[in-house]
């Protein structure tokens, strides 16, 4: 049965509540870098399904990639057996996709992960900048039962809408 949009309670600690459809995809992955590619493929497919253009889909997939990389590297300290849960669903009020990520890793406040000044050209330090820049909404909070929750949302740009019609 297709469910209509509904207001979901904001996860504990998240300040903004969104109205969005029931998540259509629920995934659990292990904290392994080689699983980033299949998750990206799923994200691109879901983004295309809701009408995001190719570049917007790529940017959303990249933001998710960077979030997962932080969880794997900093949250789970590269332990390959950590659990990560990912939900994806269309936004209700605009053409776009919402992704929720949960883990049980050591809490790492993304605000405390120092990104570098973009004028300072050196390897590394770009992940946080990319995550914040690539999506329309980026939020994170500690989960009451441990771990972190991250929300990413990306809506269609006008070009996306025209391309999708």
């Amino acid at each position, binding site marked *: 049965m297709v469910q209509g949009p509904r207001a979901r309670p904001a996860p504990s600690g998240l300040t903004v509540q969104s109205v969005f459809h029931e998540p259509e995809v629920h995934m659990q992955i292990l904290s392994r*870098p*080689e699983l*980033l*590619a*299949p998750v*990206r*493929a799923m994200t*691109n497919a879901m983004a295309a399904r809701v009408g995001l253009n*190719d*570049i917007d889909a*790529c*940017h959303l*997939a*990249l933001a998710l*990639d*960077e979030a997962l*990389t932080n969880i*794997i*590297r900093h949250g789970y300290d590269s332990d390959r057996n950590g659990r990560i849960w990912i939900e994806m669903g269309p936004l209700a009020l605009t053409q776009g996709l919402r992704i929720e990520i949960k883990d049980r890793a050591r809490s790492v406040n993304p605000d405390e992960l120092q990104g570098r000044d*973009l004028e300072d*050209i*050196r*390897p*590394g330090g*770009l*992940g946080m*900048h*990319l995550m914040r*820049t*690539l999506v329309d909404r980026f939020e994170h909070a500690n989960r009451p039962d441990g771990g972190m929750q991250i929300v990413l949302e990306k809506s269609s740009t006008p070009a996306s809408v025209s391309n999708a019609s």
Partner: protein
Amino acid sequence: MNAGSTLEIAVETSGETTIVTPKGEVDMARSPLLRKSIADVMKAKPKRVVLDLSGVPYMDSSGLATMVEALQNSRKNQIPLLLCSLTPRVRSILEIARLNTVFTLCDGRAQALNG
């Protein structure tokens, strides 16, 4: 899109230029391979290095870091490094990271070889 688990990297020579052509997505799992390949090429001290990105549909921050490291290596060794044939996706990521003005970008391989 190549969502497989491998990144294929071809290295070839054209005159005094060494051309590195990765094929596949460059992410946290795959960037170490590209990093090693470029470092090996730089060690041979070619006159110029061209990184042909026509086969790279996606690159994350670890891939960008790999290219910045390559650029630093090239400057240190005074070996010009040129990027060519960027896909629209990778070009957009480079622009968001504001690296498009840091690298020498060429539209195609011919321009890179003649530039």
